[in-house]
């Protein structure tokens, strides 16, 4: 089947999509957007978090057909332009605080934090922890991710 949706501001069409394919698979393997990550593919780790019509979802749990005619924003679409200066404040904060190690959780976390700060510009620490409870990180122990969120909120 064909799936057409707006991805990072552009109308994109994927051909020959199998009915069982996830939005994650279509983004990664058919549209050349591997930023959303494939760590568990069962909605437990949050590494594939993207916006679907403005709401954060695990792309692995969305059937590709469900994205038909809708708007998707991935981590690749958060920065308004190319180059380090153009990065979103959340991306900059992750870099500045050392919240990135292996980085596999990073794209999903950045989308989740981006969403949190849009909803709650000044989150408390318990707010941050609650909002990011669906994003697993195995490298950092989350301390520097907390620092990154606080920094992004303040910037």
């Amino acid at each position, binding site marked *: 089947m064909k799936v057409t949706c707006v991805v990072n501001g552009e109308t994109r069409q994927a051909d020959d999509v*199998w009915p*069982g*394919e996830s939005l994650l698979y279509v983004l*990664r*393997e058919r549209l050349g*957007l*591997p*930023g*959303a*990550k*494939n*760590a*568990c*593919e*069962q909605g*437990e*780790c949050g*590494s594939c978090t993207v916006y679907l019509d403005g709401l954060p979802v695990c792309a692995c749990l969305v059937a590709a057909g469900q994205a038909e005619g809708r708007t998707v924003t*991935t*981590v*690749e679409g*958060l*920065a308004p332009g190319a180059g*380090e200066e153009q*990065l979103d404040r959340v*991306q*900059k904060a*992750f*870099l*500045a605080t*050392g919240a*990135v*190690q*292996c*980085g*596999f*959780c*990073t*794209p999903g976390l*950045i989308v989740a934090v981006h969403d949190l700060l849009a909803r709650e510009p000044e989150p408390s620490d*318990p707010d*941050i*922890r*609650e909002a*990011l*409870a*669906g*994003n*697993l*990180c*195995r*490298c*950092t*122990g*989350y*301390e*520097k*991710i*907390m620092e990154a969120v606080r920094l992004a909120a303040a910037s």
Partner: protein
Amino acid sequence: MTTVVKEPTAVAGGVGTSPQRPDGVLKVSGEFAYSSDLWADEMLWGATVRSPHPSAELRGIDITGALAVPGVYAVLTAADVPGARHYGLEVVDQPVLAVDEVRYEGEPVAIVAADHPETARRAAARVKVEYAVRAPVTDAEDALTRGDLVRHVPIRRFATAGDAALTADVVVTGDYEVGMQDQAFLGPESGLAVPAEDGGVDLFVATQWLHVDQRQVAACLGLPPEKVRLSLAGVGGAFGAREDLSMQVHACLLALHTGRPVKMVYGREESFFGHVHRHPARLSYEHGASRDGKLLYVKARILLDGGAYTSSTPAVVANAATLGVGPYDVPTVVIDAYGVYTNNPPCGAMRGFGAVQACFAYESQMDKLAAALGLDPVELRRRNAMTTGSVMPTGQLVDGPAPVADLLARVRDRPLPAPATGDPRERPGGVANTTRGEGVVRGVGYAIGIKNVCFSEGFDDYSTARVRLSVVGGEPAVLVHTAAAEVGQGLVTVQAQIARTELGVAMVSVATADTSVGSAGSSSASRQTYMTGGAVRAACQAVRATVLARLGRATDPDRLGSAEALSLVDGKVVASDGSVVASLVDLLGDDVVEETVEWRHKPTRPLDPATGQGDAHVQYAFAAHRAVVDVDTELGLVRVVEIATAQDVGKAVNPQAVVGQIQGGTAQGLGLAVMEEIQVVDGVVRNPSFTDYLIPTILDMPPMAVDVLELGDPDAPYGLRGVGEPPTISSTPAVVAAIRAATGLALPRVPVRPDHIVFP
């Protein structure tokens, strides 16, 4: 005791600073190419047929149904392996694809290549394998009785002759158990194999040691190593789980067979079967002490379940034995550590590597002994703390800094966290709102651990670095090339920092790690900054010497003095009086100066097989933890409120990355303390998913205060000490000690589950 290491401030972003990761922008923008992100024209997807049985004879494999699936290009079995049918890190015993029998659940039996990953999976499901199922050996004690021994390491060290030493005023004993932990890296096993025109193959893969992969893959393919070229693809975490091969040989076999690039990416469930785990252990300890709290002897028996194949079990057993009493002075030590073969999942390397299991037991014992003596737990540890000049149970002298008492004092002296607020999210159970504070008890616990850094027991442990200096765009520029695996720890950053410091050049690039340069050894044993850092420094020093030798031709030698008096600062050669002698741009012109250096740490020796005596280790590292927990004693729920760590890192080459290692390592130890266990019943894994195998979330992790000491080790580059593993080792017993303090329970097993607290 502090060694001051001379450190020229050659240029910004050098050793001791925390510059941004060179791969950071790519990682935050989603453009960093991990091993599962790779793509090639005409690419096929691989899938693996795995045994559902932990032990069975292979009676036959019928691949015809799988081959008939449209879109399938190859179905291969052991008969299709052109070279060696087995591989292994030290002992070659693990089949590429099962030969005649399977020895663990999930063992690869056949592989499939198809034009869509789902086609490959469906075809794999149509491979018919006839098994004659056998009763698996799943109990390590039974395996030992049967003689299925991987290795026995005895330690015999007597202050006085024989059993006379084993007398004491106070004796405590305990039996402990550690469950099977998973590394649970997020980036699954994956890679892309591309067949080459010369009949060889190029493999892009996430691994910890390219050259040991290359050696094994080439042998199994029946190709010379130069025809099996490996490049490091982006690695989504490792923690030991990428030391052994997973999909490497399989993808290459399929690529060479089909003549097309083949990508393999494990799903999460498959990943639990695709790599080795931390050895589950049973440990029995006896500690004897005098009334004033001085340890007189420790006797221990440690049994580690290695599962179906050897992997790194021999070295894990040696670590458990040699580090088995912890960072304490113990005059008499009798330890027997065993690793055995069973039909459980293979176990091998995971962060902490044998030291983790022992530390849970010896630190539990120290608390028990403190209680028996009526002593404060930190005070008992202080009275027995190892120092510089102490002797290990192996007879090895601890000649470097060993600030055991100081590290403990630092975590003890921190202010304690405030009592819980009324926010339910700060209570055990969190937003589940399971308590309003009734039945919640706070506890505080301490632990300290010891870890060896680098490879031990006489292993020829080295790293290779190639450093090139040239002028690029009118500026001096350095290219650092090694085969060392960046797995997330920040080695790429550190390599560039070292080059900046040594050569005084701001523009430094680190080339992609591959096998076109010599081996760097493994990104494990907390060794890579020490070893590849040491190699990069040595190669930079060789480049520096070559460059400075050119000066003699161009300048007045009397003015220069010796080469040692010159420094490279900000692209210039500077004399000791601060005057600029020459610029690197002028000195180099169009020339390229390149040096490749192989660098080794000081040699180690094997352990005496009868007594376990010998200078087996390179360097010792220490970390201490204090954990504060709130326990809902009615529901058995634990919330860790705070963990404080103190660790000596010798020299914080990159302070931000050091703290990141300590916090991340602490989190993995917390996971083992309260939630992480691969549950294996009759050889079958019951929880191969992130739904059922729990790792700490951001809700489970508390604030972590970190106190970094820098007591230089004169033998190590810049005085540094390996950082990655120590924090994982002692956080587990610290958390459990805190739960014991809150509940008064013995809790001899990790992970501690709610029912251990509610129904002890």
